[in-house]
């Protein structure tokens, strides 16, 4: 009887550790299908009308405004950390900076990374904000129109 109880204890402990590890590592993509892009095509223009005499001055920049509406209902009444993720993708390194209306945090990142835009309790089924994005890409990579994908991720606390 004693042996059975001890085995149960170790088994429970093991499950507990696995559960905890999985909870910290889990990032879920948040449903942002309610978002609306005001300008779905981002016109990329030279950041400066004139290049520099050295290797710089080749950046193209473009701005778009997106009404973000993410569905956080699965995490309602929990606390979570929401990230804006810009995966590494074609045409190459992409820099993204954004401003917000205050619901989310402003920030900037380079493709292949994610940045925290919200941390705290999830009190409403949907979270909304208007974000103004500015994309920056080397003009040497911008031979034609390219789709760029980003998403929001939730780390539940």
């Amino acid at each position: 009887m004693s042996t059975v109880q001890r085995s149960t204890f170790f088994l429970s402990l093991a499950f507990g550790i696995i559960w905890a590890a999985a909870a910290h590592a889990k990032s879920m993509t948040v449903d942002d299908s309610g978002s609306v892009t005001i300008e779905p095509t981002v016109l990329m223009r030279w950041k400066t009308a004139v290049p520099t005499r050295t290797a710089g001055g080749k950046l193209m920049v473009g701005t778009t405004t997106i009404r973000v509406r993410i569905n956080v209902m699965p995490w309602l009444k929990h606390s979570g950390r929401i990230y804006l993720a810009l995966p590494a993708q074609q045409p190459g390194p992409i820099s993204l900076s954004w401003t917000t209306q205050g619901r989310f945090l402003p920030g900037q990142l380079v493709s292949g990374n994610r940045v925290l835009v919200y941390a705290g309790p999830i009190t409403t089924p949907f979270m909304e904000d208007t974000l103004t994005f500015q994309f920056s890409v080397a003009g040497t990579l911008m031979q034609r129109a390219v789709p760029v994908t980003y998403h929001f991720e939730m780390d539940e606390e």
Partner: protein
Amino acid sequence: MRCSLDWLHRASLGAVFLAVAGSAAAYTVTLTPASPEAVYLQVGNGTFAGNTNCMGSGSDCYSSGGTPVNNATVNSVSVTVATAAVGNGTAQAMTTNSTQADSFWDGYAYCTVPAQLYIGGFYRTTGAATAAAKVTATVPAALTNGTGGTIKFSQISWTSSGNGDTTANGFLPEIFPGGTFVSGGTQTVGSMASNTWNESCWNFSYLNTSVPGAGTYTGSVLYTMTSP
């Protein structure tokens, strides 16, 4: 019984997460290059519009957000050769009426006027590096004095430099190197890599190896920039 409820709860929770994962969306925007190509060539005086206080110099320039615009001025380069020196083989330095000393790139006092003629420009294009844009000079056979007298254009040559240009800072060799005019024809006087500001200052000389009749001899050279 309590245990069973707990499993049921976890099973439901798992189902919700799966449903969320299935409906989650990544957002896509399309980045489209707009008006990506531009060329600019300036020989002598040029004009930039926009900010008028480049680096505190009072000049317009790119560093202050300036934008190049058209300037139709045709500058001249000239020399008066003393009678005693005509044809003696001693090159005669020429001077220009161009007042362009500062670079429009950064307002730097790049050329020395009236001894030097500014030449600069750029070629903007998207995509990977392409072949360079060429700058050519279309040169008449000779300068003329209006009464039948001529001086071959090959009597004029130029050297190239620029204040602050060194090998260490990568600005040497000059993008627009020295040379001598052909007498009638088109010759390449420089090439510009894409997306780079290029500039040099030219010192022109009259080689003075012939003895033309007295008079004023003129001729015009047309500089053309051609992008790939």
